[in-house]
């Protein structure tokens, strides 16, 4: 029987069936579940979490050079981190097939920008493949490896949130083993000296021409002729939306190989229809190239370059059909995400929220939620690694202007290993007036509990060396490193004061396990409000815990949510909150 698989589950299955031997990734929504699912095949495929996307790309590329069918995956902003090795890998080609997967996030369900990574294929001059449902997610993997090996190119495997996280039915197959040929050194091809790169460039240009030719007649690209009035060129998830929104007699050119575009095939298709539409999410990536080839078509003036599409939006924007809805008399208020009850990050951000002259340059992770009301304790978040370094830049300006500001650069443990360590070196080397803080909750929290170099385990669940953050800080010259339990508010404040008072470079490691960690201790009690003692001062509401609310003049703690962390209890001036056994 067919199985209902998400795109990410299907890609993992595709890697297994295609005989892949090596996979590396750094987690990032919506890409994470590929490796989480692939690890079930660890006897056949080596699987690992890399410290960041650049590393994942490099190790996977090395595995390809040694002859394995290899794979790396990341969310779209991760591709920015990995761009350096990708662009030169494009010049050097592959030995075993090499797939570089980028998971884009139109509408930014979990992302910091809405970049369209299809441009990377064109920019790096490599082949790009886009599946449109879970069956294709699986099947295109094997086809992409064959393409990669045939044309000596890395393949950009481009997916989006609705491909990764939607489930559809998939027919499974068996694994076909791939043979790793004995390694042969080829320094001419694989050492990127300027002289070699000079010789590689014409090969890259030739390759793109050959790929474009191949695309005109290949199993990735399909014409569905249903009539001659309207033709639609589309790819990926947009194909599904267009199939639903356009009339039944619409013809389709559905592309699976979306870079380079098969211009000859497109011209032939365009000639057969009266009216041509290009339906794609985000940028006019295909449309611009099609127009540049002198083919008339409609696209972005109707569909918009922002946010996701769906069939209803296409019907509205192309055919002017407004949806039939009813309005209810009440309006919902916002329900933004918040730090979980018992989250160890809460104590640190509560402490920060009280400092009048503190500037907190934070980073990406669960702890970004320290920005939310009522904590409101973050000044900036830019990108992974930016927590230390944006603070560094600000502090240099504050020194110059004499502004009375205390800058805290804040990153999580996974972020520290991802790209925080170079920022730490920057602060040490260039004498930054910044206090680096690592919020070490012993796991990669935001993306759903992935191991990292500090957590003590690998993706394949083997014990690993546990890299100690304090040791790295000390090695960089941070003489006073304060290790503190952030849930103990008094100790947290003392660590902050101690770091600020230190003559020598100082840093803070706030360490307590994430409550969602499988290995974490179970909650040992819950907090309760004695409403006779509660004076209704609302101090406990300031810690921003979802379990604490205010009803009829008194605070209340929701017993189903509370895990007994006591942060609210510690801020209560009336001694009205008590911890009880569960």
């Amino acid at each position, binding site marked *: 029987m067919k199985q209902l698989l998400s795109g990410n589950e299907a890609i993992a299955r595709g890697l297994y069936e295609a005989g892949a031997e090596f996979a590396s990734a750094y987690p990032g929504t919506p890409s994470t579940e590929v490796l989480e699912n692939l690890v079930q095949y660890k006897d056949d495929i080596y699987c690992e979490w890399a410290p960041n996307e650049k590393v994942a790309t490099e190790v996977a590329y090395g595995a390809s050079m040694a002859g394995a069918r290899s794979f790396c995956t990341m969310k779209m902003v991760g591709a920015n981190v990995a761009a350096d090795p990708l662009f030169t890998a494009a010049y050097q080609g592959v030995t075993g097939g090499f797939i570089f997967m980028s998971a884009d996030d139109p509408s930014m369900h979990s992302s910091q920008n809405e970049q369209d990574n299809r441009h990377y294929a064109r920019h790096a001059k490599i082949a790009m493949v886009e599946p449109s449902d879970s069956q294709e997610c699986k099947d295109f993997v094997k086809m992409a490896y064959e393409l990669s090996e045939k044309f000596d190119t890395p393949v950009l495997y481009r997916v989006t949130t609705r491909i990764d996280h939607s*489930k559809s039915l998939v027919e499974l197959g068996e694994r076909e083993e791939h043979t790793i040929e004995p390694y042969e050194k080829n320094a001419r091809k694989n050492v990127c000296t300027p002289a070699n790169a000079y010789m590689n460039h014409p090969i890259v240009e030739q390759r793109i021409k050959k790929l474009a030719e191949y695309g005109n007649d290949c199993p990735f690209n399909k014409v569905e002729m249903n009539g001659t009035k309207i033709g639609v060129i589309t790819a990926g998830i947009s194909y599904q939306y267009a199939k639903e929104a356009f009339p039944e007699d619409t013809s389709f050119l559905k592309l699976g190989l979306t870079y380079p575009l098969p211009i000859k095939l497109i011209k032939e298709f365009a000639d057969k229809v009266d009216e041509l539409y290009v339906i794609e999410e985000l940028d006019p990536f295909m449309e611009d190239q099609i127009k540049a080839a002198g083919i008339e078509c409609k696209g972005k003036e109707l569909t918009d370059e922002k946010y996701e599409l769906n069939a209803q939006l296409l019907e509205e924007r192309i055919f002017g059909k407004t949806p039939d809805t009813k309005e209810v008399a009440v309006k919902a208020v916002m329900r933004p995400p918040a730090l979980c009850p018992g989250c160890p990050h809460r104590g640190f951000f509560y402490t920060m929220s009280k400092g009048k002259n503190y500037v907190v340059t934070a980073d990406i992770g669960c702890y970004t939620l320290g920005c939310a009301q009522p904590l409101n304790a973050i000044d900036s978040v830019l990108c992974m690694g930016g927590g230390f370094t944006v603070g560094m830049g600000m502090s240099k300006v504050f020194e110059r202007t004499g502004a009375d500001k205390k800058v805290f650069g804040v990153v999580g443990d996974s972020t520290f290993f991802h790209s925080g360590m170079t920022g730490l070196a920057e602060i040490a080397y260039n004498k930054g007036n910044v206090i680096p803080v690592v919020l070490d909750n012993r796991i990669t929290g935001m993306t759903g509990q992935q191991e990292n170099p500090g957590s003590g385990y690998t993706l394949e669940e083997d014990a690993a060396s546990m890299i100690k953050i304090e040791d790295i800080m000390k090695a960089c010259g941070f003489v006073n490193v304060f290790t503190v339990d952030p849930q103990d508010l008094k100790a947290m404040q003392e660590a902050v004061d101690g770091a600020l008072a230190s003559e020598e470079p100082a840093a803070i490691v706030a360490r307590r396990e994430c409550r969602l960690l499988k290995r974490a201790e179970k909650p040992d009690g819950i907090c309760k409000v004695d409403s006779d003692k509660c004076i209704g001062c609302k101090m406990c509401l300031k810690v921003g815990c979802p379990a604490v*609310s205010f009803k009829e003049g008194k605070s209340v703690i929701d017993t189903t949510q509370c895990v007994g962390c006591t942060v609210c209890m510690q801020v209560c001036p009336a001694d009205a909150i008590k911890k009880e056994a569960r």
Partner: protein
Amino acid sequence: MQDVKSVIIVGVGGQGAILVSKIMTNGLIQAGYDVKQSEVHGMSQRGGSVSTQVRWGEKVYGPVFGKGCADMLIAMENMEAVRYADFLKPDGVAVINDYERDSMTTASGIEEYPEGCLKAMQEQFRTIAVDAEGIAEELGNAKCMNVVLFGALADSLGMDDIDWEAVVAETVPQKARDLNLEAFRRGREAAVNAKA
């Protein structure tokens, strides 16, 4: 696309909407339908508003749908029902767990939780409201609220050829089977009473 049915399941991150969609899709696949389901992972799971969509029919294209397209709205919380009400077709059915959960902004007094969410839904849509939370607590495990709610909506799916009880039994973890079957039956009964 006339024969395609679309359902949206909404709630607060962590309430167990995924299990509801899993039971539903398992039953529909067994009955031979083409099925697609879509959810969003990541940031919103931290106590934010979440939604999952399920579609089935002879042939389904888009895994997600837009406003005015849902035959059914299943809400695990009253304000979330209101938030997604415009996804319902005018003649669609709302099945609601009559329960209010503060958001971070209403709990900390930054804004007020809106009054009359359930009533506003009842005024506009055919609505089945059940106290799934209360029933689950009576059964001794608040976590099975999602299966109580599934019981309440099962008959409204109009899939009389599917033995939902058997599907629930297969889908939930073995050790929680009896509890969940009881939850399912209680939800189903509650829906019958709610209609009357």
